């Protein structure tokens, strides 16, 4: 009746990134309690080796779609793209943290151990077809984030943010789990691909509807869609900026990967249930996120509300998944996600290189006259703000173009209208920052505290990479990237 699972070499290739990260986290944990190997240098070495080994393993992962251990582990292009994205963001965040004034408290045995474990949870999440595994991976990532948020820079403010995130995140996890339980109760299967097959005859059933809606609420919490966004501004503001950058990007990558698998695959026959609910979430996020961002003076809080609005744009594209042809919306979501991740990392890198131990809550006024003292940083920030606002030669414009195009193909004219209004509002606060940087007189000394002005630094490397890829993605690369994402699109839409 039961057969033991066949553990093949292909399984090990697929599981390698996760296994490497878990092994690295164990080493870092032991280092933390040892006396001779707990120096910052030793711990950094382990962290870098682990991350790069995991990146290599993820790049070498088989791209043909296969599943192991009853769907717990998937290989395939989407899983590979998701894992590579998360690992590269982690490497970039570690580079930026290295030169930040919180580096000493970040590169500690226990923090790096938890950091690596939570990344492994994210990788588990993006490469799974099984509801139980999805939930375990999500909790691994979330609980690690709650702790790191409050622990790297332990002060009242960050602990308050961590507690808020913890309580709301736990409620969201419970709601998501209840949704999963109802899906299992009605479909009799834990596998997403099994749900696709089991759903059609019972698609009119109340349990299934409730399960899908609760799942949507749980994912909406993690994506910080309005009205489930209350935790995001506080958590983003209070965390050390490197962790904020990590949270703002990786969480979106992992949740959207799951959302694609759910809404393009498992819930495709339920679109009349989740689609109206998601439209409400998308409209509220785009409008409320942008309006709230208008009135923020704290830079990180402004970026937090802007990330809520960007979640809204991605939700617009998810709404377009209710169409019969899901290829364009899926690719639009992935492209938008790519541009959002690169631009966010860049924007937070600018914030990080301006922060000092005395002032780590920068306001928009603190950036006044940046162009006179640090023209490179001001130019980079301008590119990122234009891209966030969706202005032409940047990636943000192409991303919004694809998203609105996908929505228009699905006759979602109202949503596109709302999206364009939102973009117009957003231009105001993005360009206000640019104006401040170029037109106002400098108020802050902008001393070279963390990243030496002009000299080579890893933060500047991340910044340069982000600027170049934002411009390339906005001009020559889009068609190429969209072609490459076609594999993921067909994989998700397996019915």
């Amino acid at each position, binding site marked *: *009746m*039961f*057969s*033991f*699972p066949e553990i093949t070499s292909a399984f090990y290739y697929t599981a390698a990134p*996760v296994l490497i990260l*878990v092994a690295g986290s164990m080493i870092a*944990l032991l280092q933390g309690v040892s006396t001779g190997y707990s120096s910052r240098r030793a711990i950094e070495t382990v962290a870098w080796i682990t991350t790069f080994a995991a990146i290599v393993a993820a790049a070498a992962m088989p791209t043909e779609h296969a599943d*192991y*251990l*009853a769907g*717990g*582990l998937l290989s395939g292009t989407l899983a590979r793209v998701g894992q590579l994205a998360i690992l590269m963001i982690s490497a970039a965040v570690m580079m930026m943290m290295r030169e930040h004034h919180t580096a000493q*408290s970040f590169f500690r045995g*226990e923090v790096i*151990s*938890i950091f690596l*474990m*939570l990344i*492994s*949870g994210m990788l*588990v999440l993006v490469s*799974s077809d*099984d509801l*139980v*595994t999805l939930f*375990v*991976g999500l*909790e*691994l990532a979330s*609980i*690690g984030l*709650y*702790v790191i948020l*409050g*622990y790297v820079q*332990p*002060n*009242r*403010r960050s602990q308050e943010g961590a507690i808020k995130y913890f309580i709301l995140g736990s409620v969201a996890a419970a709601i998501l789990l209840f949704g999963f339980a109802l899906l*299992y*109760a*009605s*479909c*009799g299967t834990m596998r997403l691909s099994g749900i696709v097959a*089991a759903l059609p005859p*019972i698609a*009119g*059933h*109340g*349990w299934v509807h*409730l399960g899908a809606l609760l799942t949507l609420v749980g994912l909406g919490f993690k994506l910080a869609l309005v009205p489930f966004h209350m935790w995001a501004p506080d958590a983003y503001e209070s965390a050390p900026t490197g962790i904020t950058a990590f949270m703002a990007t990786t969480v979106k990558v992992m949740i959207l990967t799951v959302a694609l698998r759910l809404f393009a695959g498992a819930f495709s026959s339920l679109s009349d249930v989740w689609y109206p609910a998601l439209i409400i979430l998308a409209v509220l996020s785009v409008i409320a996120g942008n309006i709230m961002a208008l009135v923020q003076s704290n830079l990180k809080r402004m970026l937090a509300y802007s990330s809520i609005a960007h979640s809204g744009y991605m939700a617009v594209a998810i709404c377009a998944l209710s169409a019969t042809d899901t290829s364009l919306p899926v690719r639009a979501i992935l492209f938008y996600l790519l541009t959002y991740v690169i631009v966010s990392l860049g924007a937070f890198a600018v914030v990080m290189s301006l922060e000092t131990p005395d002032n780590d809550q920068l306001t928009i006024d603190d950036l006044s006259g940046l162009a006179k003292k640090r023209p490179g940083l001001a130019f980079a920030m301008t590119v990122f703000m234009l891209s966030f606002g969706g202005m032409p030669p940047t990636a943000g414009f192409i991303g919004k173009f694809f998203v609105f195009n996908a929505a228009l193909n699905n006759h979602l004219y109202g949503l596109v209208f709302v999206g364009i209004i939102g973009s117009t509002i957003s231009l105001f606060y993005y360009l206000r920052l640019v104006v401040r940087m170029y037109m106002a007189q400098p108020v802050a000394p902008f001393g070279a505290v963390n990243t030496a002005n002009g000299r080579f630094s890893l933060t500047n490397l991340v910044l340069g990479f982000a600027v170049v890829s934002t411009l390339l993605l906005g001009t020559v690369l889009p068609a190429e990237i969209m072609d490459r994402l076609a594999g993921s699109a067909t994989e998700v839409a397996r019915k």
Partner: protein
Amino acid sequence: MEALYFVPEMLFYVISGLILLSSIMVVAARNPVTSAIFLVVDLFFVAALYAQLDAHFTAAIQVLVYAGAIVVLFVFVIMILNLKPDALRGIRFSLGEALVLLITLAGFVIVGSELARTAPDLTTPGNLGSAAIEMAGGNTYVVAMRMFTAFLWPFEMASVLILLAIVACVMIAKKDKRVTKS
């Protein structure tokens, strides 16, 4: 025999009612020790529900792990906190909480009536009956086989999750000299 047919169903409603009652007491009691004791009662009756589904292994684990180990730890923690007894009498109740309760109940009624309207033609096997479980090798055997074959990957990842939670607890509980008030 005819009358006995209804006994399991009646038992289900009695147990469910007791679960609801003790859950309300967990959140309503002012004294945390009372809350913890009602949590034991609550988890015990959930175990009774499992037993009624012939899931005896799960029922036993529920009593041993939750009602036994975890809640006892809760009680220890509460005792270490050494709360003042005069603020802990009676039941907590405020107008705001009553409103939340009312809204939740309204939502429950709406969702429940919608769920009850649709016919329960679900594909879940549900309770297989004790004979079928016996045929498959017994509860413990089936659970163990599933856990170490089909669900091996989430099982192993859950162990990483628990390790992370332990490390996190130690980090939070340890006295940190770096904490500042700003």
